[in-house]
């Protein structure tokens, strides 16, 4: 079911979007937030559960100190104030994803508050910096995962129930909430994408989470409303969930702006509701209408004592923060001798850490950028995945570049090696061996192909003899074709010229 949409330009001509983003980050701690169960992704269902995270009677939670430390470090990196004293709260609701019948969260006393993150977005007038203000970042726990059976899925006819896995219940989460973001206008979708991307880079830089959107360790909910002008009161908002890639952040906002604008233009009121983004069809559909069912009866968690980070602890953590991504990118730009625009394309492609890792494995900066932004970005795009999800490591890319540098492969052969690595055939050198990929450096084999090429194209050969060196390209091309790309083009050119007396 698709809703009527109006053209994006028309949306912008008539409406002003206001955005709010809620990002949930699963921390990369070894154990859960309030118990010692492991947090490993992909474990067999219900093998990482204990009385505490199952909410069994008599169990008591104890806070994971590393999770608190991570929360403070995230807050500091987002320029937040850190609460000198705060408590956990119970968010009461009855749904099988939380066996305790409440989620331990924070309510009116978040550990981090009032910060910001600056993001750069390409606009018609060049790069513009948007400041995304952070309202709060608080600590909570993740919920279990439900697998719904029956109904529309029809796996078991007539069945209508859910199967629940509590491995994820209790994994430390940080929820980062922005203030309403105004004034982005037509760039709202790009600003949101840039913010989530910058946040991901920052969290990865802090080493607090693996920030894998496709595995759900970074999740984004998008609040959006439209108003007729920046002076008009805020419109009714919708909250879109299930936005699980950077690309989806942009697409979902664009879609929701077009959908809401169509309704408002038609004189229909927006319903305040939760909507679900569908990556495959690129639409949002109505979830549940916000109602008094969302009456969580928050109260201070009586089983946990307050968290009161000392000023010394906070300052110690502040002094150990890594270089902020924006400053790091400026420094690297200078080291690599590239323009701001080139650097931005590295960052936008989600390639910065991959390029750095490849350099650390021995490749030079230019070659590292070339592979990740060229061939590999193309592969990722074709597969519709993030660059980092490709089945090739920074070390493998560095090894590949090493094979090119040593003269064993040219770029064309290297691309075939990439095919092999992505297909799981092994390390680059092994793929080159097993696929028999190697530049033909044996001159006699090349000369044979050159002689054949000269015979096949006497006109070109005569031109070269007459000193028109530009005609070499045609002969080199047919030699490369004859050798299936396995020749070193520069060497072929030398030999062609030599053969024809140049």
């Amino acid at each position, binding site marked *: 079911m698709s809703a009527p949409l109006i053209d994006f330009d028309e949306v912008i001509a008539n409406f002003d979007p206001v955005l709010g983003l809620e990002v949930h980050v699963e921390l990369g*701690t*070894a*154990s859960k937030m309030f*118990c*010692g*169960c*492991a947090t490993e992704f992909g474990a*067999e*269902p*219900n*093998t*990482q*559960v*204990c*009385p505490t995270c*199952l909410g069994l009677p008599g169990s008591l939670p*104890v*806070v*994971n*100190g*590393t*999770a*608190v430390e991570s929360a403070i470090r995230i807050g500091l990196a987002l320029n937040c104030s850190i609460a000198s*004293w705060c*408590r956990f709260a119970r968010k*009461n*609701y*009855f*749904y*099988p994803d939380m066996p305790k019948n409440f989620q331990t969260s924070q309510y009116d006393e978040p550990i981090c508050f009032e910060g910001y993150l600056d993001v750069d977005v390409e606009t018609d007038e060049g790069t513009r910096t948007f400041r995304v203000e952070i309202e709060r970042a608080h600590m909570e726990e993740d919920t279990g995962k439900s*697998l*719904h*059976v*029956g*109904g529309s899925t029809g796996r078991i006819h007539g069945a*209508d*129930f*859910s*199967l*629940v*896995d*509590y491995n994820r219940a209790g994994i430390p989460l940080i929820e980062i909430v922005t203030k309403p973001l105004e004034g982005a206008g037509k760039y709202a979708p790009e600003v949101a994408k840039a913010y989530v991307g910058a946040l991901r880079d920052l969290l990865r830089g802090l080493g607090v989470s693996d920030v894998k959107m496709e595995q759900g360790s970074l999740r984004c909910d998008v609040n959006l409303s439209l108003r007729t002008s920046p002076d008009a009161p805020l419109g009714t908002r919708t909250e879109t969930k*299930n936005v699980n890639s950077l690309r989806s952040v942009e697409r979902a906002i664009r879609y929701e702006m077009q959908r809401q604008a169509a309704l408002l233009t038609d004189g229909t009121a927006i319903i305040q509701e939760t909507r*679900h983004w569908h990556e495959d069809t690129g639409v949002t559909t109505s*979830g*549940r209408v916000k109602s*008094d*069912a969302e*009456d969580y*009866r928050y109260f*201070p*968690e*009586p089983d*946990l*004592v*307050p*968290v*009161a*980070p000392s000023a010394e602890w906070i300052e110690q953590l502040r002094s150990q923060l890594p270089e902020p991504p924006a400053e790091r990118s400026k420094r690297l730009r200078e080291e690599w001798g590239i323009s701001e625009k080139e650097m931005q394309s590295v960052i936008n492609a989600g390639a910065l850490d991959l390029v750095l890792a490849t350099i650390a494995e021995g490749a030079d900066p230019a070659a590292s950028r070339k592979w990740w932004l060229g061939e590999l970005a193309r592969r990722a795009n074709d597969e519709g995945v993030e660059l980092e999800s490709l089945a090739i490591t920074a070390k493998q890319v560095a090894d590949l570049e090493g094979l090119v540098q040593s003269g064993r492969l040219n770029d064309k052969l290297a691309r075939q090696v990439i095919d092999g690595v992505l297909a799981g055939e092994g390390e680059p050198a092994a793929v080159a061996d097993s696929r028999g990929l190697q530049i033909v450096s044996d001159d006699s084999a090349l000369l044979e192909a050159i002689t054949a090429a000269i015979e096949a194209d006497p006109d070109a050969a005569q031109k070269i003899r007459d000193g028109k060196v530009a005609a070499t390209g045609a002969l080199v091309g047919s030699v490369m074709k004859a050798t299936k790309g396995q020749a070193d083009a520069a060497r072929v050119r030398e030999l062609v010229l030599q053969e024809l007396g140049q």
Partner: protein
Amino acid sequence: MSAISRDDVAHLASLARIELTEQELNDYAGQLDVILTAVASISEVAADDIPPTTHAVPVVNVFRDDVVTPSLDRDSVLDHAPAAEDGRFRVPRILDEE
């Protein structure tokens, strides 16, 4: 005026997914009202400069190290569930969501 109305109790029951009869709603409204009125008497002695107490002892920052401890055996966990399937708890479907 009572501290909690019959409608409040009905609302709480619906949030908690508990089905109550008309008689129970009336009974609980009366009983809860007695409890709330008793607790409310604390506010008569608490001055504005006394922060709300959530713990009897003034302790903060009780943390544990981030160390994994053994989890429960899955079979024994699921044995206690009313229904299980494929290593998971089987529960009635509640919201018609994805």
